[in-house]
């Protein structure tokens, strides 16, 4: 569905030191510099996949999404989305994809969201019956109810984002590019939006490429992640594999019925924290069964919990360059 080969995007930007003289000098002499936002990026995404697109700020995520949706022309390489070349912005292509940008809105600000929906229905040439059916489905899935008749300016951020999703999906796109769709939302609303995206994907078989700084979004939605940093690919594979590569340890939290000498814990794994009768150990993945079994037998364990390290920590470590290699 999405196929990228050696994709590159270089911006040419002006540079000017601060101060009055450089400002005056820039009137007749401009210094240009080239910034490579995306370099030699290649990946493929099959129809129906939900893929997380991760990277720190300035990694090239949004630039890539804009190239995929036809807003930016690549400097080099090839892009195909659903068989189309996005940069040509053919009508059939625009009807096939959607781009939701959490920080930009397409809803008409002073009118009820239903006005934007009606407009999009006409612009995307959605037959009346299908429009009504899709709108009913989407509003039910997102539990929008009376919200549709209120002016957009009077909606909460969460309600607005739900309406943005409806506006973006009314034409039933087969490819969804979601750029920070949960930004600024509270935990409950984030969860609602995540549930909706998953159900939409399952019901329609649409392909989803999602960027988010909220790792819960990625963990809950995306079995596969693509990680970029500095415009280049750092990892492409299963989320669990990313975690295993970057942090080849699991965390074992133990609660004891009586205090345990710290010296006795070293042989089970690296002690991360110890607070009275509670301790957290870091244990290599492959040693986990033996360690848990031994701890249960040799220590006064009253409670035990095994967790993956937080995804934020994994990515921080990945971007710090301490671990892993490009897949």
């Amino acid at each position, binding site marked *: 569905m999405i196929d990228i080969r050696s994709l590159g995007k270089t911006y040419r930007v002006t540079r000017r030191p601060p101060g009055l003289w450089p400002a005056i000098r820039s009137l007749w002499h401009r210094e240009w510099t080239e910034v490579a936002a995306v370099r030699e990026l290649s990946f493929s995404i099959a129809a129906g996949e939900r893929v997380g697109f991760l990277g720190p700020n300035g990694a090239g995520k949004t630039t890539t999404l804009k190239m995929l949706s036809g807003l930016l*022309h690549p400097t080099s390489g090839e892009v195909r989305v659903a068989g189309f070349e996005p940069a040509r912005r053919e009508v059939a292509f625009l009807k096939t994809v959607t781009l939701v940008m959490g920080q930009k809105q397409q809803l008409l600000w002073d009118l009820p969201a239903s006005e934007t929906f009606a407009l999009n229905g006409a612009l995307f040439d959605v037959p009346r019956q299908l429009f009504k059916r899709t709108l009913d489905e989407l509003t039910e899935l997102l539990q929008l109810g009376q919200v549709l008749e209120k002016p957009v300016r009077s909606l909460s951020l969460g309600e607005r984002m739900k309406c943005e999703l409806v506006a973006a999906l009314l034409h039933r796109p087969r490819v969804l590019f979601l750029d920070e769709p949960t930004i600024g939302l509270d935990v409950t609303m984030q969860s609602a939006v995540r549930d909706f995206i998953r159900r939409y994907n399952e019901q329609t078989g649409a392909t989803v490429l999602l960027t988010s700084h909220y790792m819960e979004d990625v963990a809950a939605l995306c079995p596969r992640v693509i990680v970029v940093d500095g415009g280049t690919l750092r990892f492409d594979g299963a989320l669990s594999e990313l975690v295993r590569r970057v942090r080849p340890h699991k965390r074992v939290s133990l609660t004891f019925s009586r205090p345990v000498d710290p010296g006795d814990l070293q042989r089970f794994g690296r002690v991360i924290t110890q607070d009275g009768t509670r301790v957290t150990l870091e244990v290599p993945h492959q040693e986990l069964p033996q360690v848990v079994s031994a701890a249960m037998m040799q220590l006064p364990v009253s409670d035990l919990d095994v967790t993956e390290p937080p995804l934020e920590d994994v990515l921080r470590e990945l971007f710090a360059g301490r671990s892993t290699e490009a897949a």
Partner: protein
Amino acid sequence: MSLLTMLQRRVRVIGALLRAGFANALVYRAEFLVWMLTTNLPLVNLALWSAVARDGSVQGTEGSWSQRQFAAYFLSALLVRVLTSCGTVWELTYEIKQGTLALRLLRPVHPLLAYATEALSPLPIRMTFALPIVAALLLGVGWEHLSHDPLSWLLVPVAIAGVWLMVFLVMCLVGALGFWFDSAAGVWEGWFAFYTVLSGYAVPLDLFPAWLRSATAYLPFRLMLALPVEAMTGRIDHLQLLHGIAQQVAWCTALLLLARATFASGLRRYATFGA
């Protein structure tokens, strides 16, 4: 897709854009009224030129101008401005600068068509504001200072539509310069300074020196205001008006091609340097 289906789709799209634009204009009716009041320059000029003509008629190249004739001219000019002014240049440059133009580009409709319908959709509200001007023309000035040529009156709406289209296309052309530099709206201000003088907005072109008046025949400004005004006030006949409309068509064609090419080139730059 058959031609009929394509036409039906286009009509449906334009209808939807006009409906949304009109609903938006209704929300902004108060701001719209204030904005309309800023097009009051003809009233200022009316007061000015009425004072000049208080002690007798002012002699123009092709006739004299009494106070009532000035009133007929400037009220007609106000009517044309109320019906034809638009804000596309500011909207376009703002959206380019803020990056919100990207959202338009994701829709399967040409952005210039969307801007056109948004500029046209407040027309019913504009007409409401135009009614008192028409009343002032008929009751305050009197029919004797307006054209008595029925053919001219039939052609005046066409000429006003031509004025609107020329204003809109120039705004698109200047607004598209926003793809290259931030101060494109400033270019419009420069253009408007020339427009104010050379379109007959500030001074009837008949009062210009002969050399300057003849120069306006080769420029677009007269066709962007004075043409329908001169027809409404009976200073040109229907044949001269028809000739002016033909000139409007030629200018509109050239401006449309230029605006489209500039916009397309700007979009390529937008897509190259960052959307």
